[in-house]
């Protein structure tokens, strides 16, 4: 039996001025240590909201998320130590106006870990950007910036890597490279990855389990083969066939 890292829900996130919840997962969803879970769904389905809650960047307005032995609720934030066990990579990487090395080292610096040049160098080599270590981050291309953002998240060796559309708008070379890195981390470190994407092909290539999120609700979740070959829900079938407009 695999160790559970996350137990998500029942959980709800509502925003002021919006009648419908942005996220409303009714049945508890367990995420095991070492699995790659892909959450697919159209734009506005609540995928990014889910990741922000999992990263404890945002508190739910109802329900709870259990992470390790701590619980995030509307009234209780995770401890700093627990929050630092997860790293979130955003769709749009915003790098600090510093060198590539300093950007990658940021997570270490805020944890009080200084002089960890070897770790930074290793993270940069993972994303194949060692040659740009001294370069100002502002000079990078979009794909390079996203790879730096990934290195910045990996350098702290998180238990959970949360990825929000990490390859949207990137060229095939960068997409392939980022997917390779995620797979390698999964194999070598048994790191848990939760990736939200509207790209069903990417979900199929990467994930061990896939879930469909629609209007904030989890419609169906299954192992990758079942999700794509024998989906139970008509909406999942429509999404997998590409019939769902988004």
């Amino acid at each position, binding site marked *: 039996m695999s160790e559970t890292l996350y137990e998500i829900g029942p959980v709800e996130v509502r925003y002021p001025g919006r009648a419908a919840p942005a996220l409303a997962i009714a049945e508890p969803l367990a995420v095991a240590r070492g699995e790659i879970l892909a959450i697919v769904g159209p734009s506005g389905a609540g995928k990014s909201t889910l990741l922000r809650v999992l990263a404890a960047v945002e508190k739910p307005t109802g329900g709870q998320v259990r992470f390790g032995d701590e619980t995030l609720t509307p009234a209780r934030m995770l401890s700093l130590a627990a929050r630092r066990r997860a790293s979130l990579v955003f769709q749009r990487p915003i790098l*600090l106006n510093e060198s590539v090395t300093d950007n990658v080292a940021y997570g270490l610096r805020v944890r009080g870990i200084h002089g960890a040049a070897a770790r930074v160098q290793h993270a940069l080599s993972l994303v194949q950007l060692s040659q740009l270590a001294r370069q100002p981050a502002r000079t990078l291309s979009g794909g390079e910036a996203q790879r730096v953002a990934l290195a910045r998240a990996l350098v702290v060796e998180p238990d959970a890597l949360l990825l929000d559309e990490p390859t949207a708008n990137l060229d095939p070379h960068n997409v392939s490279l980022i997917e390779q890195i995620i797979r390698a981390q999964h194999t070598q470190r048994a790191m848990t990855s939760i990736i939200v994407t509207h790209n069903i092909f990417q979900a199929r290539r990467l994930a061990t389990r896939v879930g469909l999120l629609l209007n904030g609700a989890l419609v169906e979740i299954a192992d990758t083969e079942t999700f794509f070959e024998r989906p139970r829900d008509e909406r999942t079938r429509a999404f997998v066939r590409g019939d769902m407009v988004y």
Partner: protein
Amino acid sequence: MNDLAAGFLRAIELIAAGDASLWEAVGLSFQVSGIALVLAALGGLPLGAWLGLGRFRGRGLAIALIYTGMGLPPVVVGLFVYLFLSRQGPFGFLGWLFTPNAMIVAQVIIALPLITGFVMAAVMGVDPDLRRQLYALGATTTQATIAVIKEARAGVVVALVAGFGGIVSEVGAVMLVGGNIQGSTRVLTTAIVLETRQGQFDRAIALGVILLVISFVINLAVLGLQGRGTLVKS
């Protein structure tokens, strides 16, 4: 025109001769304004960041007050500081009226809203998602806020330059609360007023030239530290 040209020539002579009373006023000007700038920055930097990044009830009112403060007439500030520090005033026991301390208090009050307002605008210009990204990388709220201020450093430098410019050049407040006492509270701006009233235009011009040149050099040095403050976005 002849008076002006003669004044400039005399100014150069005075500067070259190292006139003691002239350099005394120079020294006190930068001592008072320097201390006031540091104190105003210590308050204005965190206050500006808080107003720029925070979301709380009354924020709009606080911002309106800061904007009003950015246009405070120095002479009005001087009047209120005078009343508070005068013997009958609530802080009269300090005995600060007609001392450099009173001038520093007045200049802090003038510079604080300027620095706060410019810092607030600078941090509001930083991508709002940056804080969230840094937070998601394990930063505490304080660590993320410091990083945002660093990203806004170009605007922060402008805030400091504006604050310094606002106080080193003002005359109304320091005249009222300092009293323009030679050897004690006479600074460049009050000395310029005095020399002009006495018809000593050459000395007034000399003081004016020195004020401009030193301000220019200080601002040049500060701008050198500014660096480039643009965020990187893919």
